[in-house]
């Protein structure tokens, strides 16, 4: 019983990190880059209209950071639950 509840907790912890990452993923691309693009384009980032920047640059940078963040968080969670590989 101990064994399966540990697994269930590990999975819940994973889903929590996952959900947080996917919220950011959705925000930077679909919300900032598409749905709110016209509003954000009123603001400038240098010569980039902000919405345009998110669609062609910012979302991509954020995706890279997100995956490394996820990998880092999951390594910590693996250790915490004693399921890390050697």
């Amino acid at each position, binding site marked *: 019983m101990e*064994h*399966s509840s*540990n*697994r269930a907790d*590990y*999975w819940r912890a*994973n889903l929590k990190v*996952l959900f947080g*990452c*996917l919220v950011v*993923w959705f925000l930077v*691309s*679909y919300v900032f*880059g*598409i*749905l709110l*693009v*016209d509003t954000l*384009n009123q603001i400038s*980032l*240098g*010569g*980039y*209209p902000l*919405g*345009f*920047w998110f*669609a*062609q*640059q910012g*979302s*991509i*940078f954020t*995706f*890279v950071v*997100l*995956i*490394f963040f*996820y*990998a880092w968080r*999951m*390594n910590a969670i*693996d250790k915490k*639950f*004693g*399921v*890390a*590989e*050697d």
Partner: protein
Amino acid sequence: MDLQTLIYLVVGATFVLYFILAIVARAGTTSEFYVAGKGINPVLNGMATAADWMSAASFISMAGLIAFNGYSASAYLMGWTGGYVLLAMLLAPYLRKFGKFTVPEFIGDRFYSKTARVIAVIALLVISLTYVIGQMKGVGVAFSRFLETSVEVGLFAGMGIVFVYAVLGGMKGITYTQIAQYVIMIFAYTVPAIFISLQLTGHFLPQIGTGAELTDGSNQYLLQKLDMILVDLGFAEYTGTPDLMNTFLLTLALMIGTAGLPHVLVRFFTVPRVRDARKSAGWTLLFIAILYTTAPAVGAMAIWNTLKTVQPGAIGAEEGNLLYEERPQWFKNWETTGLLKFEDKNDDGRIQYYNDNNEEFAAMAEAEYGWEGNELYVDRDIMVLANPEIAKLPNWVIALIAAGGIAAALSTAAGLLLAISSAISHDLLKGVIKPDISEKGELMAGRISMTVAIIIAGYLGLNPPGFAAQVVALAFGLAASSLFPALMMGIFSKRMNKQGAIAGMLAGLTITLLYIFWYKGWFFIPGTNMLPDNADNWLFGINPTSFGAIGAAVNFIVAILVAKMTTPPPAEIQELVEDVRVPRAS
């Protein structure tokens, strides 16, 4: 040394490199042939996956697509990168934990069904074959353009090279050549972009240069001036945002499709551990992002350079347009390829480039400026290929672009061919037809099916079945609507059973194929479409190219409903799901 000799030398040197790598890293076991013995360093696997993923289309065509579509091309940038977030968090680590050789194998085991496995194989074959046709054609075109051979000779040469290192080396050989190909490709892409950015804006990084002021003394931002000049020539604004709904759906379809592409997924089977798979996905996207964040700069700066070349002065004034006699050397070079064409419609000896499809603007331009139609045809592939010449860079950079274009096409072709051959030798032959085949026999079968796949791909590359241009939509639509949902539910839903997964995949595949064929013609045969392919006829205005997102949703819904009405999967399958979810049993 003249340019042609230099190109032969540089491209030839890269081929020698690929051969050496293939011989050093040849595969001796099925594990090495399918998954490189699961011993690839995660950072190196990231490079290999980036090369595997970035095709001739990414390298040659994407910047041109951005140049002529501005903001609207963002769907490709976000879609083809954001898919890796899904892949890294929803699929790759768990498939690595599962620890076998192929994507259909996971579907077959998880849904305890050979039928499911065969459906996955069929989806994989359709996706990978349609995709590989474009690569083989890309190899042929790159050869013919740079080495001045015919497309056929180029294609045969490409087939020969892939044959040597893919059949001999299997996944192991392909991995090491892909790493080399990535380095060549990224160098060839970024060097001209850096120089052009320096020339136009004084900024070293093209990503910064695109958002900076021009150094032409105007103190205006590049993108601002680009918007203005485009509007003055009757085009839409570069940063303008039309049709956001299809941008949204296309981005979603491309993301889900990217995450479901078997030849990319299988690369994450080659790293030693689950945590390597997660990290490797990050490195992959970082290596891809270097090219994908440079591409918008290449696009914007190339269209700017083109416009400023033909329209150096005020729009409407006679001397505002370039005299054809005074055109620059790169213009002449590319005219001989037919990718750049000029036709003097109003016989004034000057080049007018504007949007004559904009009726209001065309009428005004004719009445006030004496323009009688757009006189310049620019192929979008030129935007990357002619870059070094426009920037007046030395010949070795041009030779590098040639090697880079060929590397991009070869690396993706090899990855696809491996996915195809392992689906045949491992999933169909070993999995279904002849389970008692020996390891040696299976390895031989893998090499034979790879050879056959190369011949078929080469044949289709020479005789493209009319739908080469539609292939991208089909491959991504099918990957999104069939494989991704089945894989994801296989990991995230313990309750998902055989009946649900099969029904979901079939429903997703069918509805996506139907919708694409409905507007593009049955099997893309021209004239057999049921409705004209334009926004007025699309269901709820959904572009067939973006339909993969809807196909995926249909797959999820049908699978969940059917699974609810049928019996849950057996206990050992639920145990299998529990097991793939944890890196190591606790």
